[in-house]
């Protein structure tokens, strides 16, 4: 059984259909990359999985359970964590505090009100280990707004990882990054536990082909093709419409 299964998903904004009866099946531990031109509906798809956007119809199954209708916080608790294409962080708080907030939510300590937050050592040390994982250890006490854009992208991933997800959704994690930072991000995704399922939207073909087990091409809200990197490269329609520009 696939970990994340999307069945006949449909959503429109007025007359603009952004998700046209999408079917997708993503297995456990798979690294699945979604590509497609701007406006293809990639972010909208992630928003529907994450609970930020309500689908018009269809089903989204996580381990066989339909999660449609769950609020974003319920989706996270079900085991799906996401990042945002546009940095969506606590810009005025410190980096470690960002992570601490996410860890304490996942550990169910959010409602605790009799002890100082900083005295909860288990949460603090988990936050610190994620800090190291996303390579921000030198920046823990800085305010997020003082970080470079690329560092903020790393924190985006850190916040999602703090949710201990089964499925990690990354919306263009390398956008706006320098080549060195992009290489770091590839390494970070590679280093994730193999059983973690990763769905990633990506534009950089180098990143796509160095990480993907399978690729889905979205075009005007429709799935144009799904398959291994080789199959996608060989697909005539994809070459025509999407990769065509490179010829």
């Amino acid at each position, binding site marked *: 059984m696939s970990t994340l299964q999307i069945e006949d998903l449909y959503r429109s904004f007025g007359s603009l259909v952004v998700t046209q009866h999408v079917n997708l099946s993503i297995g456990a531990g798979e690294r699945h990359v979604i590509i497609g031109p701007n406006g293809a509906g990639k972010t909208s798809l992630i928003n529907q999985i994450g609970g930020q956007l309500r689908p018009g119809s269809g089903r989204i199954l996580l381990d066989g359970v339909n999660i449609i209708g769950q609020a974003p916080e319920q989706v996270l608790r079900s085991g799906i964590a996401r990042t945002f294409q546009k940095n969506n962080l*606590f*810009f*005025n708080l*410190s980096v470690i505090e960002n992570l601490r*907030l996410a860890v304490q939510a996942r550990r169910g300590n959010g409602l605790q009100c009799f002890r*100082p937050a900083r005295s909860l050592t288990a*949460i603090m040390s988990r936050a610190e280990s994620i800090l190291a994982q996303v390579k921000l250890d030198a920046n823990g006490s800085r305010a997020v707004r*003082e970080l470079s854009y690329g560092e903020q992208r790393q924190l985006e991933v850190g916040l999602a990882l703090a*949710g201990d997800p089964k499925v990690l959704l990354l919306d263009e994690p390398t956008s706006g990054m320098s080549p060195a930072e992009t290489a770091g991000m590839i390494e970070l995704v590679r280093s994730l536990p193999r059983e973690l399922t990763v769905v990633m939207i990506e534009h950089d073909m180098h990143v796509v082909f160095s990480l993907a087990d399978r690729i889905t091409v979205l075009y005007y809200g429709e799935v144009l093709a799904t398959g291994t990197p080789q199959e996608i490269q060989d697909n005539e329609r994809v070459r025509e419409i999407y990769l065509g520009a490179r010829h």
Partner: protein
Amino acid sequence: MDIYLAQLMNGLVYGMLLFLTAAGLSLIFGLMNVVSLAHGSFFMLGAYLAFAVVRETGNYWLALLISPCLTVLVGLVVERFFMRRLYRRGHLDQVLLTFGFTFVFFDAVRSIWGSDIRKLAPPVSLEGSIALVGGMFSTYRLFLLAFGALLALILWAVMEKSRLGAMVRAGVDDSQMAAGLGANIPALFSGVFGAGVALAAIGGVVAAPVLGLYPGMDGDILIPSFIVIVIGGMGSLRGAFVGTLLVGIADAFGKAYVPALSLFLIYLLMAVFLLVRPQGLFGIKGGVAPAGMVVAARAALSATLRVKVIAALVLLALACYPLLVPDYQRTLVSEIFVFAIFAMSLDLLLGYTGLPSFGHAGFFGLGAYTVIVLGALFGLNGWTGVLIAVPLTALAAALIGFFCVRTSGITFLMLTLAFSQLLYSIAFKWRDVTGGSDGIGIPDRPNIFGWSLSEPIVMYYVTFGFCLLCYVGLRRLIASPLGHAFIGIRENESRMRAIGYSTGLYKLLSFTIGGALAGLAGGLYALFNGFVSPEVLHWSASGDILIMVMLGGAGTLLGPVLGSAIFLLMKNLVSSYNDHWMMIIGIIFIACVMFFPGGVWGILSSRIAGRKPDSPPRPGTTPAEGIASGDKAPTGAAPGASMTVDGAAR
């Protein structure tokens, strides 16, 4: 004469008057995203200026021409020199700025024309009555209807048919788009603001013969106009029109047939509409949450020794102070302690959780009334009263919060305002229990350890103790995981949800805790004052406490304490030798909103810590009160700008 017809007529006339204010308010909100609390003041100003012109010239028609022109001039000054500077800041700052102006205009009108009700006679040509379909109608009221309808028609024609109207409508949807149509945005804003003021002033002039003139007529037209806009939909002219007719007629029939409930009727109408259709009947901008509401950035800075020494000295001084001063000063400072608790409780919502409540006085009043009513009617001891008041207000806050926290931004502000006005109406109408507008008192104060609270020095130490307790408790709360979650919601609610917080629950908790503490402050106020009247629940009381919080610095704990001290000292000192304390408070408050958005504490704290105040837009931060996560303090400023989520619309 057919009684229904007469009521209908009354309703329509009142509706027309409301429309003139509401239409402008709605356009201004729609285009500029500003809720102008000063709009009622322009209505009042229009009426009084007309009164002055008529007294000089005896010519009503001349007044109808001159008064709106003068009022528009005043309005343009407000827009050009004050509001325009705040366009890039949060909406709350603009709301508060206009609130400051209501003080200034109120005081100006009261000192020029006095507090008595004045009458303005309708023009001679419109005196008398006309017989029409089954009844006699006052000529002037018929004129009002025709005049209002004509203005509505003109307004509609301008908005729908002219190029200018197209720009305004485009601007309501998206100011970028209006710029695309070639609109000069600042000029467009000024124009719409001016037009809105003109409508309000005209409304004031034509209303004067029907409603009379008195300081306070500003609030009496403003609140119903809000309700109209909420019902009709923000930024929609058609909505304002339909809304005014609904409210006008509901009000007229309510007054005639269920006088006991007439005040609630329109608030209930509003609450129901907000819940069922938050975007209003024809809403364009409906439930959108202006995310720019985020209050100042609060980061931490390590509590230096210096801070601790100063804190110890201040505490010592406060502890010795009552031994050295006469009773009236003890009383004054006791009042400050009570309001400091109240202000801190609001700051938990406003400054820490980002919930801009404009109805917090409701909980304060509920606490005060509980203690006094239980004491007066059942002879219950004041302390027992407080013990009952706190859970009762917590319950009320949980109930009201349940409805309010589902909205945000301006809608939240209006909904909390409506609920507190509902409580006000109850206090006002339920005479048997609350004493109505006369208020109600208790014969004597309770004791504590054998000392009577009627001794100012005892009262001083009791309120001081409670204030300290609240401060320490809130400080611990804010340092706890729960407190950090509140701050996270203030900073970025959508991300909080994405990392797993049921933010609705958290906001409800914050609202309930804040409400309960306000109830405690109210209960102490009852013991302090021995008397309570509906004013403590009035929306302007909620405004006062907002001022105290913003004045001192929202998002800090000492800020509100300082703010309430400044506010009450000023009110006391200034009013003892000068009647214009409202004017002065208004001006100071306007200055604070404009130039010290971090509040007095924001500036002071950076001084104490030996740093220069940070540069604009948000000076100041707090020592050890924000989230301290490391020893290097991120200093400075939150962008007032909104944080939007990529495509995160439901």
